[in-house]
């Protein structure tokens, strides 16, 4: 158990080091998030009166799309340079490897988005209660988003032009997350933390981890076969 944990933390540290040395490529998701929100505000006319009711949905869409585009290279780089084969040869369980990659990806792409939420709130001038709901909903839904995205990313390793297909494969799985997250944001303002929506969101995240990690490991095993 202990060597397995050390391997997991080793991969997390390695992924973060690679990302930090990549010349800021890992921050592109955050830039996309900002660009998407600005463009939406411009397209909708820039009036706070019209923007405020749409803000939670827009911010959530920005999060989903900025994440979806980030999964294309989650496993593709490791598969290309032979890291994946070595992981398999080293006897490390594929599930543990997937778990490590998912944790590293959470730190690298979801954490920056969560930290940028107050700024996004400023762009749309939304009240603090709504911002709190957004924060909690993204936090609760993030395991589901990462697990499903990782699954699609693993399915499309070596796929030419897989970016659009990744979106197509993941979107149906993300529909319940989106529905309950936005429901939760709205009800958080008057009902607080223990709403049905947030409980459902947590449930979906648990189911997604239970399905997503083994399915991703199975897809990666197929690729290295």
């Amino acid at each position, binding site marked *: 158990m202990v060597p397995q944990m050390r391997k997991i933390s080793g991969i997390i540290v390695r992924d973060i080091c690679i990302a930090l040395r990549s010349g800021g490529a890992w921050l592109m998701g955050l830039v996309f998030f900002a660009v998407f929100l600005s463009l939406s505000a411009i397209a909708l006319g820039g009036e706070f009166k019209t923007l405020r009711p749409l803000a939670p949905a827009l911010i959530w869409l920005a999060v989903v799309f900025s994440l979806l585009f980030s999964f294309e290279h989650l496993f593709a780089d490791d598969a290309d340079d032979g890291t994946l084969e070595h992981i398999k040869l080293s006897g490390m369980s594929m599930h543990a490897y997937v778990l490590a990659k998912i944790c590293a990806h959470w730190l690298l792409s979801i954490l920056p988005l969560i930290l940028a939420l107050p700024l996004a709130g400023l762009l749309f001038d939304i009240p603090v209660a709504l911002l709190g709901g957004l924060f909690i909903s993204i936090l609760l839904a993030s395991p589901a988003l990462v697990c499903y995205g990782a699954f699609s990313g693993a399915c499309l390793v070596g796929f030419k032009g897989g970016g659009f297909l990744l979106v197509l494969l993941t979107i*149906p*799985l993300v529909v319940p997350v989106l*529905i309950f997250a936005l*429901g939760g944001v709205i009800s958080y303002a008057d009902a607080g933390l223990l709403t049905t929506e947030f409980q459902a969101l947590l449930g979906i995240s648990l*189911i997604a981890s239970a399905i997503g990690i083994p399915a991703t490991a199975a897809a990666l095993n*197929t690729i290295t076969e």
Partner: protein
Amino acid sequence: MGVISFLANPLRFKKFARVAAPIFGVLALVLIVTGIWIGLWRSPEDQLQGHSVRIMYVHVPAVWIGMMAYAAMALASLFAYIWRHPLSDELARACALPGAAFTALGLLSGSLWGKTSWGTFWQWDGRMTSTLILLFLFIGYMAVWAGTPDKRRAARIAGLVAMVGSINLPIIKFSVDWWNTLHQTSSVSMPDAPGLPPSNLLPLMLMTFGYSFFFGWLVLSQVLNSISKAGERRQRPAAASPTMETL
């Protein structure tokens, strides 16, 4: 289980499908033609909806068969995943295109029916939304098959996609229904099959069985086709190997 292991042999499956496919085709033709005839000319029109209720005989079975096709695809993928049987992969793959076509037909006829009875082509109603998402699932599955060059890998990955999708379908259905009841103020009522009078139920059932046999015919012919293609591929390298040795 006995039937499955009997048909797992490609040769026996081929023999069975060669007999069953034409029977399914003829049954489908007879049932659909009778269903359309009774549905269009020999069944009463609805008190509220008039003649437009006849769209139901095309629409409702199409959506049912679309959902059944996804279930069959996921089940075949599960068999293929556990026992690594290539025939099961072919079966799953053959379900995708007809399933997507039936789902699309359901959406299309549904929107036409919606225009005549609710006055709008599209409504973000629970059933319509989840059917649309089902279509997206089918398209994603087919895209994985189409875009992965290595066939064995494509089969396994597509199978995983189908299985993960099938686990999620109930969650999607539930969440969309929940979302719909929350946001939809005007309730949209559809005639449900069990409450229908027998004169409307008969053509509906005829069409459902007709569509099912049509689906079965399409799947069996597709699998037969791919078995004979695989046979050709296996024979070709044997013929080519002597030339390699002479080189």
